[in-house]
């Protein structure tokens, strides 16, 4: 969409505020944002939407750099997406150790270590904190998203494992003689 086209769109929608409302609606509806709209957004003045607050200015700058001038991926496609329930079992200065449920049905667990920076968005970390680890893969690329597992992760799974570990060498796990 070029400038002259955009001018006609502005005339069509009237107040630019309406164009902004349309943009927000499209995002919340989970639909792809039209490229035309994004480019059009770049050619109009964003100042009316951005107040003088420093956070909003930063956001304006980010929008300008990353989306309008730089282009962006509307939705990424992954060939494999797996979600693991996990809990924190150890917190080090640089490393966070997690216990992950690899196979719920067969009660398989694995210990994985991650750099602490990956957990900074979760606030204060505590041992036993539930997590959801989302691992995405495709040819040439991989990504891990770490999210809070509060009210999602079933902590009973871990407790059952601890109970079983406690019995591992006991006579109860041996056949009757």
């Amino acid at each position: 969409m070029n400038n002259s086209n955009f001018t006609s769109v502005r005339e069509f929608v009237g107040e630019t505020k309406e164009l902004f409302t349309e943009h927000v609606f499209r995002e919340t509806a989970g639909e792809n944002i039209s490229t035309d709209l994004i480019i059009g957004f770049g050619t109009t003045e964003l100042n009316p939407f951005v107040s003088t607050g420093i956070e909003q200015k930063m956001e304006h700058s980010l929008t300008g750099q990353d989306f309008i001038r730089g282009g962006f991926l509307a939705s990424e496609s992954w060939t494999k997406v797996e979600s693991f329930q996990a809990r924190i079992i150890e917190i080090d200065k640089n490393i966070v150790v997690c216990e992950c449920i690899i196979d719920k049905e067969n009660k398989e667990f694995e210990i994985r270590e991650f750099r602490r920076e990956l957990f900074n968005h979760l606030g204060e970390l505590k041992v036993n904190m539930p997590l959801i680890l989302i691992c995405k893969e495709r040819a040439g690329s991989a990504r891990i998203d770490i999210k809070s597992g509060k009210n999602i992760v079933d902590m009973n799974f871990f407790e059952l494992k601890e109970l079983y570990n406690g019995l591992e060498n006991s006579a109860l796990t041996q056949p009757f003689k």
Partner: protein
Amino acid sequence: MIYLPVHQLEIRYSHLLGFPNCIYSTISPFVKLASGIRIENENTHNAVIHLFFKDSFDTISVRWDRLIYKSESHKQDLTASNQFIQEPFFNLFGKIEETEGFGVITNVLYYSIFTRIKSTSEMESIRSDFEKRFFLDGFDKIIPDKTDVGVIIERHNPEKQLTINIGPYTGPQEIEKHGRGNFNIDDPETLSKISSIGEMMTLNLLHFTNKFNFSDFKNLHKEALSLVKQNWKDE
């Protein structure tokens, strides 16, 4: 090659009378995992809460009488451990089952559209092979200039109702047509796999049960795959 570009699973249960207010606190923790949310008919018993997961092209929809999983991309192994269907879909269903107002599961609908791509064949030869395989002489005369053919096979018994629709496949528009506009494939990788010609098989399996979990789903999917293999033996 056989692909499963679209799949839908519906776990249907007795009506949740306090819906949607009774379910918000159960669903809320899962919202942070989703890339988008939409609520239709908010604050009425007909409310539908959609959770969109754009990264994997999956959707979970919650209604007062069913929980729906919709996949709009081909997945290598739908039933592998920690795949979307197990986490978060069955996890969420487990939480809904635990809510105070939950009654009983009434039935489960398994719906899949399988495609077998034969990119080296001509469409006309696929159509005529299909007609030779399934129809006797004289079928051609019913509608001479027909644009599509298909076969519906049904089997009903007290536990299960199975409907299979088999026919030639001319491209992704067939999925829109047979899926009644319910599916919209945006995944470029899936589109590149199925943007050719071949055969398709729509499988609709209604299972009357009052118990359903991830291993029951694995059994349903296994049953569906065995029907697919039986139809396309040479694959």
